[in-house]
């Protein structure tokens, strides 16, 4: 089963093969969860967003274009679900992302936690491209394709996000000094 490509697994899953669907899940769950965790900044929300994305993806396998890669399609669902939830929460409750980050990254080492907190402090658009680029290793062109954006926009968002992160590191270092 390992040697089969995603397209073949999707075809078998469509025909009712639970083994093929389980293999798809095993391959893509960690990456999809990573995207949700970094975009939402919250473990519990990442758990549910990713579960929901898989349910939606598997329920819609019949409409999936097998000529296209499965991973980016799934990641697009994860990103959209994460942003939808954050957006609705912000509308109704108000943004308190930074307030929550302290508690949510406690399982990380100090330096990692600060970097992840800084990533979570980015705007959602910049956070998404950072996670896709450095968390999953997508190229800027692939990110542009995944998010339906011009490549130039992806490049500029990446550059600005990195600049934001460097600035927050400088401010933190200055605060310590």
């Amino acid at each position: 089963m390992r040697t089969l490509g995603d397209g073949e697994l999707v075809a078998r899953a469509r025909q009712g093969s639970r083994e093929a669907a389980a293999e798809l899940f095993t391959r893509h769950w960690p990456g999809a969860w990573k995207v949700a965790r970094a975009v939402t900044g919250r473990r519990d929300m990442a758990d549910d967003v990713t579960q929901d994305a898989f349910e939606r993806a598997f329920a819609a396998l019949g409409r999936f274009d097998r000529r296209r890669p499965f991973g980016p399609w799934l990641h697009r669902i994860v990103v959209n679900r994460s942003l939808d939830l954050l957006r609705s929460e912000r509308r109704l409750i108000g943004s308190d992302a930074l307030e929550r980050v302290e508690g949510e990254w406690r399982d990380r080492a100090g330096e990692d936690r600060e970097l992840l907190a800084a990533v979570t402090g980015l705007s959602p658009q910049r956070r998404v491209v950072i996670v896709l680029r450095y968390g999953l290793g997508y190229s800027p062109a692939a990110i542009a394709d995944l998010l339906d954006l011009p490549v130039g926009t992806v490049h500029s968002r990446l550059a600005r996000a990195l600049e934001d992160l460097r600035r927050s590191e400088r401010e933190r270092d200055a605060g310590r000094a």
Partner: protein
Amino acid sequence: MPDELEERLERTLGELEPGADVTERARASALGALPPPRARSRKPLVLVAAACAVAFVFGGVTLAATGGGLPLVGGGSPKHHTRPTQPRTAGGVVLPRGAVAFAAAADGRVWLAASSGTRLHGAHATAYGLSPGAVWSIVGRQGRIDAVGVQQHDRGFSHHVAGRPVAASWAPAGIRIAYVVRTRRGNRLFDIYGNGTHDFPVARGVAPVTPSWRWDSQAFAFITARGRVMVHNAIAGSTATLPRACGLHHPAAVAYAPFGGLLAIADAAGRVEIVDTMHRGPTHCERGQPGSPSIAWVRPRQVIVGSGEAITRYDLYGRFAGADVTNVPGTIVGLVAGMDGRRLAIALRDAVGEVRVVEAHTPRFSSAAYPLRVYRLLLTIHRASGAVALTWQ
């Protein structure tokens, strides 16, 4: 060539990993969402149709014999035990049938589903309540309470408070809100108009228990830190203490009946007192299961108290006047009745601390222990240590 920051990002983001338990649950849920395989020829289709016909006939017989087609959970024989299907929790809580909105609040977080499409998923709120018809929500956070439109998300008012709101309850008429604020000097109870004006301090030293409004919105009951139950007349501004009865040690929940002046009070030892606060009718003293109690009225004279691993229903004056017990698969940490009293939402904590909120059929009154009939799972809260406040509108 990546610089040092980019290398750290790759390493740090690359090391994020999901938990094994979540992975297994999600795998089962995702596989359950797979569409059925497509038929390839007419022959299997005919066979499937025949099988369905047979299943329909035998299923009908079975349903007639068991009295319904609902999965049964808790009590009864093991063959009736069915785990609810996996929830779709990412959109927040599932809306119970017939509800305009449903909310669950626990450990400073809130989940909401509304028929307008609004969803909240574990949003930060230390207290949460819904107005009648779920037009507005009251959101408590450190230092303030806000009234927020459930559908349009517009802000009705924002009111500063000197502490952390821990409980809030909207009057049935929608004109007032009673809320409890935790301050350095203990919990304080306030009564504010629904438009954010006229904030009245009602009492100091109260328990962090959600006040319960009388049906006419003219009074509400609350519990003091010393365990006395008091009724505040919101029109006259006066507060009266209910005399102790039934030997309740320290009341932990109060709930007014949907009509009239009956007030149900319960403590953690399983004692239940039902007192008529308006017409001086007889006081009923009952004894149920020990445990942190939750109260829900299902009819004007029928009240359900959930505590421990059972819900006990008390029928006060009906044909079946008495009590019955229904066992549930977990420890009850929250309970609310639907608007018509025919359905319940129950929050159940399992041995590992996971809380499942299920929608269940209000038990049929019976002298024998009856298994709980669960319609569906509404929400799973992976980590919740305290009580779960449920609101059904």
